């Protein structure tokens, strides 16, 4: 299920290889601070997602981007119900492709948008404890699929090549566990927050 997306990504990147030139590319690395939201009774803690993007400027104000993201394990609240005490956690990684239009409003500053689609692989893990004398345990299940992201950012150049960037961002993974569970158990996972990063132009 993952292979078609990798193929699309390869074709996407390859389409721009012959146009890549010095000084019209940008690599940025960001730490995205977000509390995932599954849309139910979940209450995830804030976690971090690392993302690295390659941006190729097809026009002076528009870059085509591709990137990779990977999260740490982000925990939901521990809670107790009639069955036991349990704690879900989530870990995700994937690829993105998108567009990054920019508006330069001063010599060192610009604002930009960043939007596109993503391919994800996400794992949910649940650890559960029942009572003394009963075996506790954990269970992990992975799923993959696609989604989209959109962000609005500000970039400040320290030098001609190095800049700092700040983004408000939302990332949505669609239909987790579709085809693996019943329809009412399928859900979308939203990641909304902000990111801080550095970029290098070349």
């Amino acid at each position, binding site marked *: 299920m993952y292979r078609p997306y990798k193929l699309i990504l390869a074709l996407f990147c390859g389409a721009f290889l012959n146009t890549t030139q010095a000084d019209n590319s940008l690599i940025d690395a960001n730490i995205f601070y977000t509390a995932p939201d*599954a*849309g*139910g*009774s*979940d209450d995830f803690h804030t976690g971090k997602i690392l993302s690295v993007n390659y941006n190729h400027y097809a026009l002076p104000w528009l870059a085509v981007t591709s990137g990779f993201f990977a999260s740490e394990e982000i925990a939901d609240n521990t809670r107790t*119900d*009639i*069955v*036991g005490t*349990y704690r*879900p956690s989530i870990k995700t990684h994937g690829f993105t492709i998108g567009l990054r239009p920019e508006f330069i409003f001063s010599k060192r500053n610009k604002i930009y948008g960043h939007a596109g689609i993503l391919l994800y692989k996400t794992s*949910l*893990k*649940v650890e*559960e404890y*029942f*009572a003394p004398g*009963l*075996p*506790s*345990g*954990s*269970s*992990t*299940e992975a799923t993959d699929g696609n989604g989209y992201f959109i962000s609005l950012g500000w970039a400040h150049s320290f030098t001609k090549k190095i800049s700092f960037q700040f983004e408000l961002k939302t990332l949505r993974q669609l239909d987790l*566990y579709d085809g*693996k*569970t*019943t329809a009412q*158990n*399928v*859900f979308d996972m939203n990641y909304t927050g902000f990111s801080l990063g550095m970029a290098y132009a070349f």
Partner: protein
Amino acid sequence: MFRRYFSSLHTFIFSLFLLSACDIDIDHNLPDIPPEGRFVVVGANQHNNIGSAEIAIAIFDDAIPVPLVGGDVVQASTSEDSILLLKDGIYIGSYAASLPNPANFNQVDFLVVHEPLEARQGRWYPVDLLNIDPGPGEFVGASASVILPPPPLDLQTDNSNFMSINDSFTLSWSAETAGDIMKVRSAVSCFDDDNIYTYGTEAALIDNTDDGSETIGLEQFIYDINDSSEPPFTFLLGQSRAALQELLNKLIDEGIAEDFFNSITLINPIDSSCEIRLFLFRHRDGAFDSVETNGRIFGSRSADTTLFYNPN
């Protein structure tokens, strides 16, 4: 080993299903639990003209509540409907649910089942994929049943407006001959110009037999806060007050406040206009299917009427 207890059962059932309904502080455990051994308490009540029965159960080991865990859960059922007791009751380790019973079936059966997925139905993630199942526990398979006695129909009083706590009235209902026990409780609202004071009482009856008639004095509901002597009734506190609150919540469509017993403004009832919501309960013992089970189990049905007290 199986012994039947009857005292305070009716207070238990109405209190167990209260937990999520109102904000009443319950700081003690279910009364009359033996300090040693396993003890199971089961109850069911259906109020007249309400299409569901309130179900509750608790299990104790050496007076300590024993939680059902790992997907073990009590199933209550009539011949048409069943429900899992997934809500906590007001006592630690107790469970409660509202069993649909629009056809007013009389028998309610209880069975401890192992339903690891159903028991996790409130969780947000796909529990069918992430299911840690320790297997059935020791209680699975235990069963019991109760018979809900007939509701106390034709509940009437020969007077409904009173001016003095020395007044009395005759409460009448359709008598039955099954030997059931009758109990009277009240939810009282007293008013002055600016405040409302609410409390509950359990009336001390001359006899609690199901004979269709009982003469009761107003002093079983209205009292003087300046009188240092003990009132003849028992205040509904803790579990009993919580229980009656739940029943009031069931009757919310008739205009009863959801936080009836949360009003603590104290005015003197004897000098105030009061509304007395009187509840009559008919109780009957049930039976555990295993003679090894030690505990108490009952079914009941209830009805209510309203009296008014105005000393002015």
